[in-house]
């Protein structure tokens, strides 16, 4: 293999290679051994299956939304049905897909290995959190089956408490339970990161993936309970009629908004930070370089988490918050945007003087750069007070958050899945297909959501079942894009499943990456490490890796 070939993929000789005889997948057999497992890797797989399921459920809702919006008239479904569609789409996608996406799958799988330990601090709580997630999912499905819920994912009072007769309480219960699942995941991560690092694994030797998860976990632990109590109050207000948010009883509906966004703003960083962690790993690996400005990237994660708690009222600028406090929140919103910019530039400079190859995960990372920058910068539009007046509650918002959530986090998630798939399953997927799907989803994505920015500035309100005819052209473009996007997301499901059986054997370290997880067998042993590793090098130390490989070659060969 010549050093100048355009790929770094380094698979073992397929004729002789086999999967390791003993690994976490075949360690024990039977359904129960999965359902009662304490192994963080198995729980990660359980999570992966369940969030994929819910992603496609949410995706079907998205497809129906887009189909309805193909024409200006309300022709496909009734208004109520449409309202249920986007509510369920939002609830499923946010609480059952995006919040647990990277942390509960990749984070669960990798954090203990990256830290050089055998498991998360509390394996049982980890399992519990998956069951809570399932319970939350079940309640959501129940709400769906018993007639749906049409509050929007934001549950605005007094609409949700007094004016709707759908399954608000069921959905509220679902979110309450799913919230605790997220709290327990975060709690487990924090304890593990503080208390379980292998000898020599100092804070500044940790991979940036772990830093990002640490920051996100803090948000999960401190933010989610506020959502929990808010949702409890909504449920109580609906059922027995207490009057905390009800204006006719003297309550203040804006209080609900404050409490809701106190969680839900930090939640958007729960959704993006783990994705940023993934990007750090990918960019470093495929440019063969240490992440530029490691400390800056690490601290910017923490800064995002910290500042993230101070900006929630930017979702309420026109809702009647005091103008003075709107000023303060707008200013702080500008500050919270800076650390994200820092990260983008640091990743870009990581490429400098690297030796760059373009495998699938790297393509997803590139998609992330472009889409997250657009999404983030449009967030700055919204943070500017006067600008927000025109843009809020229009499709501009919809486009903004899909750019950060789908273009940012979902791309990062897919990048991460493709990156660690060989580690998780021991097998490679067909590169040509995966590259195709990365490109397809990038194109489809832009086609879907770019027109929505224009629609938003034209004034098309969100959550509209029917719209004035002049907006149709752009909506048709968007729907067309969604179809392409759907294909782009369906493809990985197919070839990844295919690869489980037929994929090439990946070997320990197909990407020749430096992370601890790449130094053990793939798929790993149940106990990860046979003996606790001692860490004497920083993360992304390619010289250490080269040295090590050389030694192996000399000892083995």
């Amino acid at each position, binding site marked *: 293999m010549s050093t100048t070939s355009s790929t770094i993929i380094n698979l073992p000789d397929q004729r002789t290679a086999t999967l390791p005889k003993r690994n976490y997948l075949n360690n024990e057999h039977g359904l129960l051994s999965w359902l009662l497992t304490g192994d963080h890797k198995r729980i990660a797989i359980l999570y992966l299956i369940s969030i994929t399921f819910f992603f496609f459920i949410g995706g079907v809702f998205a497809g129906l939304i887009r189909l309805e919006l193909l024409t200006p008239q309300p022709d496909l479904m009734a208004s109520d049905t449409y309202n249920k569609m986007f509510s369920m789409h939002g609830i499923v996608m946010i609480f059952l897909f995006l919040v647990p996406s990277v942390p509960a799958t990749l984070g669960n799988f990798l954090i203990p290995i990256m830290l050089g330990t055998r498991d998360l601090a509390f394996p049982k709580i980890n399992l519990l959190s998956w069951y809570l997630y399932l319970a939350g999912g079940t309640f959501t499905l129940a709400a769906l089956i018993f007639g749906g819920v049409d509050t929007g994912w934001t549950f605005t009072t007094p609409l949700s408490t007094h004016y709707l007769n759908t399954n608000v309480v069921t959905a509220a219960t679902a979110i309450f339970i799913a919230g605790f699942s997220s709290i327990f995941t975060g709690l487990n991560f924090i304890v593990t990161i503080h208390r379980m690092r292998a000898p020599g694994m100092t804070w500044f030797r940790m991979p940036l993936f772990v830093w990002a998860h640490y920051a996100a976990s803090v948000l999960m632990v401190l933010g989610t309970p506020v959502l929990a109590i808010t949702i409890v109050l909504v449920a109580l207000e609906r059922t027995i009629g207490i009057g905390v948010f009800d204006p006719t009883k003297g309550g203040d509906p804006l209080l609900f908004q404050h409490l809701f966004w106190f969680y839900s703003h930090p939640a958007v960083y729960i959704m993006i930070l783990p994705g940023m962690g993934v990007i750090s790993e990918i960019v470093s690996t495929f440019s063969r370089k240490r992440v530029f400005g490691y400390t800056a990237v690490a601290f910017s994660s923490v800064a995002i988490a910290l500042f993230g*708690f101070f900006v929630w009222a930017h979702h309420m600028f026109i809702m009647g918050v005091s103008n003075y406090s709107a000023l303060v929140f707008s200013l702080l919103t500008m500050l919270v945007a800076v650390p994200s910019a820092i990260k983008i530039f640091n990743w870009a400079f990581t490429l400098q003087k690297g030796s760059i190859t373009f495998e699938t995960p790297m393509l997803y990372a590139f998609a992330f750069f472009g889409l997250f920058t657009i999404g983030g910068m449009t967030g700055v539009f919204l943070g500017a007070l006067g600008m927000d007046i025109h843009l809020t509650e229009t499709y501009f918002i919809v486009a903004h958050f899909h750019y950060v959530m789908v273009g940012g986090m979902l791309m990062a998630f897919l990048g991460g899945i493709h990156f660690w798939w060989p580690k998780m399953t021991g097998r490679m997927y067909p590169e040509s297909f995966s590259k195709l799907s990365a490109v397809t989803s990038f194109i489809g994505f832009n086609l879907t959501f770019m027109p929505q920015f224009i629609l938003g500035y034209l004034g098309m309100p969100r959550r509209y079942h029917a719209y004035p005819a002049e907006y149709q052209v752009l909506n048709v473009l968007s729907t067309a894009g969604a179809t392409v996007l759907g294909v782009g997301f369906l493809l990985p499901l197919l070839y990844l499943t295919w690869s489980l059986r037929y994929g090439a054997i990946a070997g320990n370290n197909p990407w020749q990456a430096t992370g601890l997880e790449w130094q053990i067998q793939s798929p790993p042993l149940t106990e990860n490490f046979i003996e606790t590793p001692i860490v004497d090098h920083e993360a992304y130390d390619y010289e250490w890796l080269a040295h090590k490989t050389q030694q192996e070659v000399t000892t083995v060969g």
Partner: protein
Amino acid sequence: MSDAYHDPSNVTNPEHADHHIVTPLQYCMVFGALLIGTLVTVLAADIDLGVLNPVIALGIACTKAVIVILFFMHVKYQSKLIKMTVGAGFFTFIVLITMTLSDYMSRAWGLW
């Protein structure tokens, strides 16, 4: 007893603290202090002190809470990490209160 299981890699770890046993005598004193605090709260509420009434009530409640946290919950003898964790919780709570109040207070200042 903690020595037997001492992990040397923990020595450099600032998150480490020795296990400390609080004696029943200390618990009794705390118990007494809490009872007195309760009594004072009830008595103070019956005296008209104007704005000072809630201040005193909350002051006593906070003192009681701090005593419970320090002794019943052993935070006084815990590692820095635990102390900071407790602090972080109250910090976030204060953020919630002050930032939200900033809205409610300045609403009365009129439109601009």
